[in-house]
């Protein structure tokens, strides 16, 4: 019942927001329904319900391990959204607010989907729902980004549907009766037809990998994140990609149950390392600090895949990394959004000396940089350390070396851009532009709060979170 509420409440909020007549008060729907969602999620987190094995939808251990992070991120972004939409009062916000709330509902459904078809439908719906958010700025560049997002994302989603069909046929061919819940598929295990499982794995990994933004299917990401408002980037990078990652985890569990686990892990490891390296190389070249965040997101999706490839210990670390990455990346997107708005340009060719013009956002941006590049004491340091430990523990020496090299290159690339825009003397044009932007508490407190959460997560990881991650791992790696 409550798992349904998590989906229905934001959708009702979306409908109300769409009907609400006043543009000035409508943004308050975001934190309002976001807060209700957080309360509902954490209530379920503390009192985990019993999910029937055959249920299509439920707050199962995997949803419990991930969804609270998304809910929390959404609430903070929503609080930021109120101030942001006040600054952008020249743009109508009816569609924006309604769609954001709808996405929250769909994300809740996606995380809780325990059925192959339902999972696909929600992912598809989220993909389409995000379209109006991307061209909120209504500029030609935003249209270009949206077109690429739809074409690449649409193809990815089509391939994941084909993969779902293949997995369905694998079950049918192995004597199944057409029950496509993940529980039933895992129970069928070795009975699944091997060639079809392998085909399905490739297609689903490419399909959901496109949604995650794994290289080489990441091409939509820099454009979309570069042109969308900061808080949209935060929700896409911290929430939408997470659904796709849980989808990969659920499918991997089925593939492993069918006996092809080592093959699945190898592909995950390769695609993860490839994403980290490609992202690091692009980070060394980009001159746009919002596109930089997109490449950083590609890198972290790669890290998640590497974690997921390393068995139970790695998967627990990956779930930890979902939390630390979502919260940290959210903070970065918001402070980058502030700087972008104040400077009027996202390129380090035009923007310099932001430490003078927007001191608070610049400080947050630099702190966020150290957080996302895994410096202690922030969350990503501890989660990535666990992944490295899991990698060394399972004898992946070469992979660890490539992984650490990638991280180092990414660190160099990120610091190059961040200090390029923070340091120096501001240009007169940028100076004049930034006069209109005031760093109110409303646009500074949310990213600060997320950074605080990231530190807290790293230093004082609550025991209940650890048990939640381990419970999810038990669901994904059942002991035979």
């Amino acid at each position, binding site marked *: 019942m409550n798992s349904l509420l998590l989906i229905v409440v934001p959708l009702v909020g979306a409908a109300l927001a769409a009907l609400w007549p006043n543009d000035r008060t409508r943004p308050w729907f975001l934190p309002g329904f976001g807060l209700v969602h957080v309360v509902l999620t954490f209530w379920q987190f503390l009192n985990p319900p019993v999910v029937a094995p055959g249920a299509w939808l439920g707050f199962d251990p995997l949803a419990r391990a991930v969804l609270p992070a998304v809910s929390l991120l959404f609430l903070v972004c929503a609080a930021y959204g109120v101030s942001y939409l006040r600054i952008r009062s020249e743009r109508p916000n009816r569609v924006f607010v309604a769609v954001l709330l709808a996405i929250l509902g769909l994300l809740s459904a996606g995380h809780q989907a325990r059925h192959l*078809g*339902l999972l*696909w*439908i929600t992912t*598809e719906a989220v993909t*389409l729902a995000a*379209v109006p958010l991307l*061209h909120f700025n209504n500029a*030609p*560049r935003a*249209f*270009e*980004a*949206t*077109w*690429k997002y*739809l*074409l690449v994302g*649409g*193809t990815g*989603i*089509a391939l994941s*549907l*084909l993969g*779902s*069909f*293949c997995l*369905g*046929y694998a079950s*049918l*061919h192995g004597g*199944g*009766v*057409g029950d*496509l819940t993940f529980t039933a598929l895992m129970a069928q295990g070795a009975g699944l*037809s091997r*060639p*079809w499982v392998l*085909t399905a794995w490739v297609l689903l990994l490419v399909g959901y990998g496109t949604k995650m933004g794994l290289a080489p299917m990441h091409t939509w990401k*820099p*454009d979309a994140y*570069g*042109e969308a408002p900061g808080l949209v980037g935060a929700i896409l990078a911290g929430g939408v990609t997470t659904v796709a990652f849980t989808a990969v985890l659920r499918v991997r569990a089925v593939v492993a149950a069918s006996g092809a686990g080592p093959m699945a892990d190898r592909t995950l490891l390769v695609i993860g390392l490839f994403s980290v390296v490609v992202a690091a190389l*692009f980070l060394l*070249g*980009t001159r746009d600090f919002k*596109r930089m965040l997109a490449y950083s997101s590609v890198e972290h999706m790669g890290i998640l895949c590497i974690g997921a490839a390393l068995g139970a210990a790695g998967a627990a670390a990956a779930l930890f990394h979902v939390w630390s990455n979502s919260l940290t990346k959210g903070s970065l997107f918001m402070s980058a959004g502030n700087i972008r708005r104040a400077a009027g340009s996202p390129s380090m060719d035009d923007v310099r000396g932001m430490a003078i013009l927007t001191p608070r956002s610049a400080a947050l941006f630099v702190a966020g940089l150290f957080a996302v590049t895994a410096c202690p004491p922030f969350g990503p340091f501890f989660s990535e350390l666990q992944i490295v430990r899991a990698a060394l523990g399972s004898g992946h020496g070469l992979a660890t070396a490539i992984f650490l090299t990638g991280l180092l290159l990414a660190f160099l690339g990120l610091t190059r851009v961040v200090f390029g825009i923070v340091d120096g003397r501001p240009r007169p044009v940028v100076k004049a532009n930034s006069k209109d932007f005031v760093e109110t508490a409303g646009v500074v407190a949310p990213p600060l709060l997320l950074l605080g959460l990231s530190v807290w997560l790293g230093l004082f990881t609550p025991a209940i979170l650890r048990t939640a991650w381990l419970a999810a791992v038990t669901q994904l790696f059942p002991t035979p």
Partner: protein
Amino acid sequence: MSGILNLVIGLAMGLNLIALGSSRLPTLIRAVSVQGVLLGVMPVLMESERLDWRVLLVALATIAGKGLLIPSLLRRAMRAANIEREVEPFIGFVPSLLLGAVGTIAAVALARALPLLPEHVGMLLVPGSLASLLTGFILLIGRVKAISQVCGYLILENGIFLFGLLLIHSTPLLVESGILLDVTVGVFIIGIIVDRIQRAFDSLDTRKLTALHE
């Protein structure tokens, strides 16, 4: 029944080649539209002995959606945007056709490697599906205009629908209706965007979408 079904699938595969070789947008849209109708007939042919309302619903929705609604939206977009009727390829028509033909042969060969249930052996569903996927990809990559890319995406989706027919008896309607909804909504939104792109760029030439790069 399998004979008629294979004939229809063969026709759909022929339409793939027409789509690849056509140099005018109206022809391309018509090919996609006819393929949509053929696809709608297939579930009825497959399940002719145990026809129920679900299968009929899928068939009707497919014919209405893929065969009529989407093509008419595409034609409307084409008229509204007042674009020229030539297709403008990145990959020329003859190379596209050759790729398509080779792909079709490869699809038939590849499909043999995958095991099928006894009731599906001898059907062209899997090769037809793979060939359509490939055609869709060639059109997506090899055509300049937004509308021809949308047609490519539709043919790609048609390929997936063909594959889905293997499961029509076992999976619940939810999955089936999800597909149709997606196709309609997806193209609808793509259509709106095409319209917007037109206003922003005064053409539907995706080659002009190159401001965003490293």
